[in-house]
């Protein structure tokens, strides 16, 4: 038995945690018993941190202090157009951070996206610790294949803040392929993974042979996902509403949250039925008209029509990646569908059409990614796993050269670890220093690519231009970490940096956040009495439930509705306290409920005597 290691699918809308136990990949259910935890974080009005289903449930009434889809902001710079466009749709308030990054304002505090993600990760870590009954400190976390270095580092930082040692960041589609190939790895075949999650789309072609998974090509769109489908539905509802009533629901944060929930629900239902009703009473009001209600129907055809271009964008990416992998659809042994959005019948139809085959049904689109991450963790740390993953760099890497152009040094889809070098020369006489700008991307124009870092090579020998050769060497480790060194060929002067694209947080900030998260976790440590109180509370709740039919009858026969309503309220408070593990408050609730139970039982006894 090796060290404990977990695999985490840190999704845009939902997250899943898994591990390999007794040689079998298994999903770790959260402490409420669910296999999926919404990637939602909220600050309740009492300043309490809520994560997962609890946060999601209160999103409508607390939209401004509920953070959803924070993955879309990971590793992004404030001043880019994509960031600004993403922010348009966020119900919570986002401000500019100190390093041109984004910060989310929650109450008095501002949090970076990695800190918010760390809250989700901490929750999953606590779930895993409850599952194992032992501390867990190592994790493999997945990210979209198309994430750039900054986004990957942000993900890694989130792990560190959550107190997890991230032993590897792996690509979601690759991870899903590992889960699919687990146990049938001896066969040789070529597979493709079509991964349309909440926020991103990835497409990857892999080759499997005797336990080795070789990624041949990967590509995607980091701003195309299920949420864009939801947005189309929101627009189709809010647009006509605005025309009719002159109110833009998208500007009202609470209404927007309700619209978002309704849109997502409608979308999911339309995967099963042809038509749904959308009913949102009291969605808004104006002084002239009084309360306004939104009532509408949406058919599957309409949904397909308004999202047709999104589906086509996915198919374009598939064709391009297959071109890069030099593979024909017919040569693929299997096509895996991953991510909740692939449940949409239209997408399955298009996949069937493009690849000429039924998508593989053996993987669970919600769980495969986390299971694969757990497998990768076991592959790395436990010797018994005879499997290996050969992954590639998703983006080309290079440097800026004279004229504002981009010189690629490592092409995308190169197997890692890899290294490459390129000789440059000085452009001025007696130039003693050279600035090296490291970029990631595919554009020929340097400025269009993602900046990874810059460093100065100083102490060059004074010589006429063109006489000093500088050898720039790039290394990408199996971890995907880029390091660059530059060597003055004649003098042997060497300088190197590890390019850590900024995730938006400095080292100090990460350490500080990790400490405060640790403090929070200590505060969460269970009151020794909690288990007893929990058992007692659950007992009382069951007793109430058993008594309920008699109580409702008694209510109609003179007892009145009021005591029942009070009991109902107290019960839901207790349930919430149970879920949030609030030991002290639960003790008070138990007292109150016990008194109520006695009183109600007494009333029923008395009622029995009467005719």
């Amino acid at each position, binding site marked *: 038995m090796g060290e404990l290691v977990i695999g985490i699918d840190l999704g845009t809308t939902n997250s899943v945690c898994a591990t390999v136990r007794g040689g079998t990949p298994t999903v770790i259910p959260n402490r409420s018993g669910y296999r999926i935890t919404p990637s939602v974080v909220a600050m309740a009005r009492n300043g309490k941190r809520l994560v997962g289903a609890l946060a999601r449930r209160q999103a409508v009434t607390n939209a401004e202090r509920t953070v959803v889809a924070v993955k879309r902001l990971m590793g992004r710079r404030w001043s880019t157009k994509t960031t600004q466009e993403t922010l348009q749709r966020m119900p919570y308030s986002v401000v500019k951070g100190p390093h041109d990054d984004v910060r989310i304002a929650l109450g008095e505090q501002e949090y970076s996206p990695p800190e918010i993600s760390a809250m989700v990760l901490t929750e999953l870590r606590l779930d895993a610790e409850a599952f194992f009954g032992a501390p867990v400190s190592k994790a493999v976390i997945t990210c979209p294949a198309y994430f750039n270095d900054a986004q990957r580092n942000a993900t890694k930082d989130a792990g560190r803040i959550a107190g997890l040692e991230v032993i590897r960041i792996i690509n979601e589609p690759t991870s899903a392929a590992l889960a699919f190939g687990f146990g049938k790895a001896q066969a*040789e075949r070529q597979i493709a993974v079509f991964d349309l999650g909440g926020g991103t789309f990835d497409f990857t072609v892999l*080759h499997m*042979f*005797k*336990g*080795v998974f*070789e990624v041949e090509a990967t590509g995607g769109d980091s701003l195309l996902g299920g949420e864009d489908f939801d947005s189309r539905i929101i627009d189709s509802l809010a647009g006509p509403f605005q025309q009719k009533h002159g109110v833009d629901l998208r500007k009202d944060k609470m209404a927007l949250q309700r619209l978002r929930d309704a849109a997502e629900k409608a979308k999911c239902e339309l995967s099963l039925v042809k038509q749904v009703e959308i009913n949102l009473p009291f969605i808004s009001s104006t002084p002239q008209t009084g309360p306004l209600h939104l009532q509408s129907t949406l058919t599957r055809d309409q949904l397909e029509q308004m999202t047709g271009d999104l589906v086509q964008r996915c198919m374009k990416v598939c064709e391009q990646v297959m*071109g890069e*992998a*030099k*593979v*024909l659809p*017919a*040569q693929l042994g299997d096509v895996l569908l991953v991510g909740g959005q692939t449940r949409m019948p239209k997408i399955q139809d298009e996949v069937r059409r493009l690849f000429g085959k039924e998508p593989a049904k053996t993987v669970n689109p919600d769980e495969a990614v986390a299971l694969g991450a757990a497998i990768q963790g076991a*592959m*790395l*740390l436990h010797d018994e796993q*005879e499997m*290996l*993953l*050969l992954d590639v760099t998703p983006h080309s890497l290079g440097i800026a050269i*004279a*004229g504002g152009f981009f010189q690629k040094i490592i092409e995308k889809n190169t*197997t890692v*670890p*890899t*290294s490459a070098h390129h000789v440059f020369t000085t*452009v*001025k*006489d007696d130039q003693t220093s050279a600035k090296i700008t490291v970029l990631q991307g595919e554009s020929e124009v340097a400025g269009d690519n993602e900046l990874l870092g810059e460093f100065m090579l100083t102490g060059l020998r004074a010589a*006429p*231009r*063109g006489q000093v050769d500088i050898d720039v060497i790039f290394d990408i*480790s*199996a971890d995907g970490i880029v390091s660059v060194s530059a060597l003055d060929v004649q003098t042997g002067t060497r300088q190197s940096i590890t390019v850590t694209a900024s995730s938006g947080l400095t080292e100090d900030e990460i350490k500080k956040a990790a400490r405060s998260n640790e403090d929070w976790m200590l505060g969460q440590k269970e009151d020794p009495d909690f288990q007893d109180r929990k058992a007692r509370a659950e007992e009382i709740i069951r007793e109430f439930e058993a008594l309920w039919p008699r109580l409702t009858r008694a209510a109609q026969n003179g007892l009145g509705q009021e005591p029942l309503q009070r009991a109902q309220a107290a019960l839901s408070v207790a349930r919430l306290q149970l879920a949030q593990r609030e030991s002290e408050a639960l003790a008070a609730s138990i007292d109150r409920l016990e008194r109520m139970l006695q009183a109600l039982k007494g009333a029923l006894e008395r009622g029995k005597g009467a005719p």
Partner: protein
Amino acid sequence: MVAAPKPGGDIDLPADMQRELDELETKGHRLTHYQLLSVTPDADGATVRRAYLEASKRFHPDAWYRKDLGHYGPLLSKWFQRLTGAYQLLSNEESRAQYDRDHRGELSQSERAAMERRQLSMQEEERRARERRERMLRTKGFARIGAARKLYEEAVEHAQNGERMQAIFALTAARELDPNRKEISAKLTELEREQARARARSALSSAQEREEKKLFAEAVTVYAVAFQNDPTSHPAAVGAARCAMQISDKRAATTWAMRAVDLSPDDLAARMMLARLLAEAGLKSRARTELTQLLNRSPDHKEAKQLLRTL
């Protein structure tokens, strides 16, 4: 736990791996790509790939994740990359053919025989493919569309196996059968462009080799071939200009230097060379234009200032 014999002290890598890496360090540099991957020179693409994937199970750093590898760590990474390089080169039919030509001398008798066997069988296959294409080109009516699709699919398969020439032949035939299908012509253009670039790359490196050996006249010709195949190749233009200077072919040097400057206006060395050539040819005003351009970019350029003064 049973402690395996560890000749390298506390290094947590099996003894046979240590031995293998030590051997590679001393002799590996002399191995051909085929020997490195433990395949024979007549191995087909799939065999090469399998050999690489098997080897990567032992040489990929992840196979020894978090093990104390001592000085073997960097070696492992280095030889994994060598294997990857060999695999990539051999999985492309064109680069493989070039490699075979360049490394014939290093192969043993039997290996050379294996390579020749493969070449013969490939020629035979090519001949059969050609005959089949010719037969298909004679199809009539609607069947032509189907035949074109078949050829297109074959072409993609060829391209996947790195057999670019085969792919281009198949696509050319497919286009003749079905001129209206866009993906056929698109794929053809793409492959032809790739082919030109590959040719340019290989010409460029062989020109550079000739330049190093001071075979300047030959180098000019080969640089020119590189430029023909890739008219955006600045290194080809500069190289040709440099070598033409060496053999005192001033006219050729001027033309190449002009191309180099057009392609990369910031290459001051090329511009300086051009200005000098123009001045020597008596084209003073054009030389002055170049020098002013140069000084705009680098105001302290001594050589340029000096030349400008003499003009």
